[in-house]
């Protein structure tokens, strides 16, 4: 559908941001979009966190100014400030994915998607949207993908990186989600924040951490579990057009996973005969990783080495996580990189994955 030629892109697009949380500036009210009885009985609240950040989760300097709308504050401080051509709005409430009340979770996801379409996606050519689903109810999640997945500015299916069902996302019970997403040409993405909340298990197998610093640092362990599950269960051999996007899950663990899994595959392939090639090859084709929070090793050369090890020219896409406390600046959050690699990370990988035209107005 869309022009993805990199030669044209070089002349036009300069930055695609794959993780923006517009709802933290306000301006998202889901209550009117809920069925009457759920609005009355349940409202919009979802399972809360056990770990508090001393600085809060939203940056202290981003609240809209007097008389300014959330939309205006978002453009002023982010899209205009940094010249962002496309930004994916990844909005909550993600923790609907670990809610015990599945009815409520499914309704909230629908409400979110309707509000996104009504109030945001047509408002600005630069806006792209992730539709939310309730992954703990895969059949109805798939139905929701079929309901709104064809909107031209919905580019991705998003859910909580914490599984509320106690098993990782490669398991067959989740496959209706992947089948529907693949049929609609949508990548599926997970985003952290819900680890250890609601019906999710402890954030890692080690058990419950005490503080936010421990919780946040170990989030990638959960991602390792999901990606390994997706690769070994055969999701990508079953759905060869599917891409799984690890948003905000870290990067430095990826070489470990590729090398260990390939080594084990040589010995243990007999358990997973559907994997006809080293698992890392499926990862390079089917899994993508967003940058923020980018590692900041004392020696920046180590970051460049890491990016090379994980084939970042194919697998990594820029994200800011604006306006969260750990967001990366589009200008100062990435150290100098070789030009081609910088271009792949900031534009080309995302443009290709999401099928984005060089002219945002063409998207419809």
């Amino acid at each position, binding site marked *: 559908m869309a022009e993805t030629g990199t030669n044209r892109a070089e002349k036009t697009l300069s930055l695609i941001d794959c993780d923006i949380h517009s709802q933290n500036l306000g301006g998202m009210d889901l209550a009117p979009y809920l069925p009457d009885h759920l609005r009355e009985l349940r409202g919009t609240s979802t399972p809360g966190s056990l770990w508090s950040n*001393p*600085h809060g989760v939203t*940056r*202290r*300097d981003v609240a809209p100014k007097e008389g300014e709308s959330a939309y205006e504050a978002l453009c002023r401080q982010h899209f205009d400030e940094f010249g962002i051509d496309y930004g994916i709005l990844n909005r909550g409430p993600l923790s609907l994915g670990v809610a015990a009340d599945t009815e409520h979770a499914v309704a909230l996801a629908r409400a979110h998607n309707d509000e996104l379409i009504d109030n945001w996606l047509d408002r600005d050519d630069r806006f792209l949207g992730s539709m939310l689903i309730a992954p703990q109810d895969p059949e109805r999640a798939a139905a929701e993908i079929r309901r709104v997945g064809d909107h031209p500015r919905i580019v991705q299916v998003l859910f909580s990186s914490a599984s509320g069902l106690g098993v990782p996302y490669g398991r067959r019970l989740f496959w209706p989600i992947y089948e529907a997403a693949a049929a609609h040409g949508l990548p599926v993405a997970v985003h952290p924040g819900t680890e250890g909340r609601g019906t999710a298990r402890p954030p890692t197998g080690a058990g419950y951490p005490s503080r936010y610093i421990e919780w946040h640092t170990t989030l990638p362990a959960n991602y390792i579990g999901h990606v390994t599950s997706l690769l070994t269960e055969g999701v990508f051999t079953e759905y060869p057009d599917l891409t799984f996007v690890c948003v905000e899950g870290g990067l430095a663990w990826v070489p470990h996973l590729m090398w260990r899994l390939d080594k084990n595959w040589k010995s243990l392939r007999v358990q997973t005969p559907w994997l006809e090639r080293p698992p890392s090859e499926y990862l390079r084709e089917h899994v993508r990783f967003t940058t923020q929070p980018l590692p900041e090793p004392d020696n920046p050369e180590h970051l460049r080495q890491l990016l090379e090890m994980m084939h970042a020219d194919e697998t990594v896409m820029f994200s800011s996580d604006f306006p969260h*406390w*750990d*967001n*990366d*600046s589009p*200008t*100062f*959050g990435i150290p100098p990189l070789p030009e081609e690699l910088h271009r792949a990370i900031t534009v080309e990988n995302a443009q290709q994955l999401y099928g984005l035209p060089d002219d945002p107005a063409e998207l419809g």
Partner: protein
Amino acid sequence: MSDRTPHVVCPARELPPGERRLVEIDGRSIGVFNVDGEYYALTNVCPHQRAPLCAGTLTGTTRATSVDDIEWERDGRVLTCPWHGWEFDVTTGETVFNPHRWSVSTYETDVIVNAEAVAAGEAQPAIETHPVDIDDGVVVVYV
């Protein structure tokens, strides 16, 4: 007291303890803080990812000699960056976590009364736009 030029920030009574003022001087954004009656000024750019540092929260910080011995200290003089929360001691410009490597520029400040301000030359026009009592002072920052 300084070979730099004094710039008027505001009348002292408009900057009570715990408060701050942002001023723009020669294209530089500078935050001026009143901490318990003393004035401190630092650059409004965080050395990490260049966030507007002086929009952060002014608070205290923790120090521990062991996990059972924790003290809340420097109350009211630790500025946390509004982005990633790095902590800066306003009185020195140094980060709490690593004072030798990461810090921000600080500037000398002073409170001067009108007569001195007039003598200080450049401060004069600004003082006229911020009239003060003769017993009162104006906060100046040397840049």
